[in-house]
């Protein structure tokens, strides 16, 4: 069951600049629920070739996971901001209730713009 208890500002992806970069459009407020927020982004301290096992470090795939209402206007590549930190939507997973009704969207996002 989805109950939004926070709000985020959603910026629909606007037209591209002459450099092919997306421009965020006008922000609208949307109800959301926060599952996970990690506004910091840092390089992993391990690199594959330097570690003894030669295995890769576990990487954080999404910096933020939030839930959005089924009526949301958000799609992939849109940008939303929570408390002034912007995230770009990487993936959206529709989640259904037991009887098949669309309950909410699980949205995975990463910090925007990328700091590296």
């Amino acid at each position, binding site marked *: *069951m989805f109950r939004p208890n926070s709000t985020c500002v959603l910026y629909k992806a606007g037209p591209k600049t002459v450099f092919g970069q997306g421009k965020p459009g006008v922000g609208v407020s949307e109800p959301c629920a926060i599952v996970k927020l990690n506004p910091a982004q840092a390089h992993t301290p391990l690199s594959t070739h330097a570690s003894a096992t030669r295995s890769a470090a576990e990487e954080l795939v999404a910096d933020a996971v939030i839930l959005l209402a089924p009526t949301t206007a958000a799609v992939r590549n849109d940008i939303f901001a*929570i408390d002034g930190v912007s995230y770009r939507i990487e993936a959206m997973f529709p989640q259904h209730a037991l009887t098949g009704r669309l309950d909410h969207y699980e949205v995975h996002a990463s910090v925007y713009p990328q700091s590296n």
Partner: protein
Amino acid sequence: MDYDALTRAVMALYDAYLYGITGVYFSMQAPGAHVSPRLLTEFETVTNRLKKTFIAQTRGEIDAFLSAPNAAPDHRVLRDARTAAEGLLDDIERIAGANQRSLVDRLKGKTQQFASMLKTATGGVGLLLQRKLEKPEFKVADASGRMWKAPVLMRTMVRDFGYQNDIEFDLAHMDGDLAMVQYADPNHTNNGLVFSISGKTDGYPSFASIRGSIFHPNATARVVSYVSP
């Protein structure tokens, strides 16, 4: 009114509804009765009336639950609860409709030859006849196609609705952002787990992230306000 009372009240109404449509069904599939389109229409008319009554009474129970004195002080929480209630009522109506249709199918599938069968009803045929005359068991499929006993699915849905709203109302009454999970059994693994209601407090799991695992449909966990020492 707490969520257990809501569940009991709605389940009593649902049992009465199933009892009612089963009664109509039995009166129409009596030995020798002829199943005509007119009979089926009549069955649908009568059971539709029962369904309408059931939905209206269920709506009343849910309204009473949402307007209880312990319900949300917050307009937003109450509005969301009302939206969820509408969704629940839609689902309840869909299940009630499926129950009704399953009886129509049973009526249709039955060639009413009981009169002639009764004369020679021994052994396997007798068992078959018993099977045909027994009280129908109501089953419904969920979205993934899994078959449920209808009363079990109904109970699960109604209790979950009541329980989730009860938790929401308790959280809405709290001033801070941190809350603690509490069980009647203090040795429970998750007893004392502290979480952030909005998900914005660092170092604590958010409510949305633990909701599925802690506040599941059959859970007994309660929430209390928590102040970081």
